[in-house]
């Protein structure tokens, strides 16, 4: 139990530290990598909490997602290397106040609520994966299918938004409109 508490705390601190680093560096590549490390630390927290399948899934998903994000950051940022020292933030006081209020309220609920009996033993990893599979194809199938259709819809919508609009010119040729 002490080992579990230690690892949850250590990975939690890493997740928070890298999460703060995302907004403290002016290099966009470093920001994306800090977010990758933060999400990986969250995945390691899942592993420390004996949720192996979700932990590995989180690490794998975030590794690919953040790699893509890094490419987009370099493509779209005016100063991706952060060499110009540009400040790309606004309404800082309000944001800090909102962030502190949100975190404070959530911590207060976490500390003051009565969580009831705590379960010491978790099901083993093979049992968890099996039961999750049965849950997905049983009681939660509608949710699972809805998520799948939503992913398909989002993929089509994202592609449709991203491709340039074409219009037909008077001579019948396609031309790209801005």
């Amino acid at each position, binding site marked *: 139990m002490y080992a579990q*508490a230690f690892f949850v*705390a250590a990975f*939690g601190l890493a*997740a*928070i530290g890298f*999460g703060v680093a*995302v*907004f403290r560096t002016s290099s*966009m590549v470093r*920001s*994306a990598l800090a*977010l990758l490390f*933060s999400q990986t630390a*969250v995945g390691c*927290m899942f592993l420390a*909490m*004996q*949720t192996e*399948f*979700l932990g590995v*899934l989180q690490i794998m*998903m975030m590794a690919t997602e953040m790699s*893509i*994000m890094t490419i987009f*950051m370099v*493509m*779209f*940022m005016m100063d991706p290397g952060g060499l110009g020292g540009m400040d790309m*933030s*606004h309404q*800082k006081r309000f*944001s*800090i106040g*909102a*962030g502190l209020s*949100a*975190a*404070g309220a*959530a*911590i207060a609920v976490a*500390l003051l609520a009565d*969580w*009831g009996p705590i*379960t010491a*033993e*978790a*099901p083993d990893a093979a049992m*968890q994966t099996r*039961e*999750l599979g049965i*849950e997905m194809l049983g*009681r*939660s199938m509608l*949710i699972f299918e809805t998520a799948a259709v*939503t*992913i398909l819809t989002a993929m089509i919508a*994202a592609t449709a*938004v*991203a491709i340039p609009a074409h219009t037909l010119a008077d001579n019948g040729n396609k031309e790209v409109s*801005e």
Partner: protein
Amino acid sequence: MITVLLLALVTGAILFGVGVYGALSQTNLVMIMMGVELILAGALVNLVAFWRFLHPESYSGQMFVLVVMTVMALEMAVGFGVAIARFRAKGSVEMEEAGDLKG
């Protein structure tokens, strides 16, 4: 055991707060999306902790985690689609320059 649950919940709460700060303070669309990712990561930590320490017998909790992970991926895909469209139209993804989106 309650200590580990509280550690996880406090971590989730702080990640949520950092994400709120990022989403509100950044001017770049991709950075705002990073803030939203942190908010969702905070939610994920809480969900896993609730499942593990309060209801490990019910796998709806893990299903909920999968749904939030799906939302994270969708947010990225649609966000980048909007970013590409915006960059093509205006040459920038700075949200302060997007005043024309106001109704």
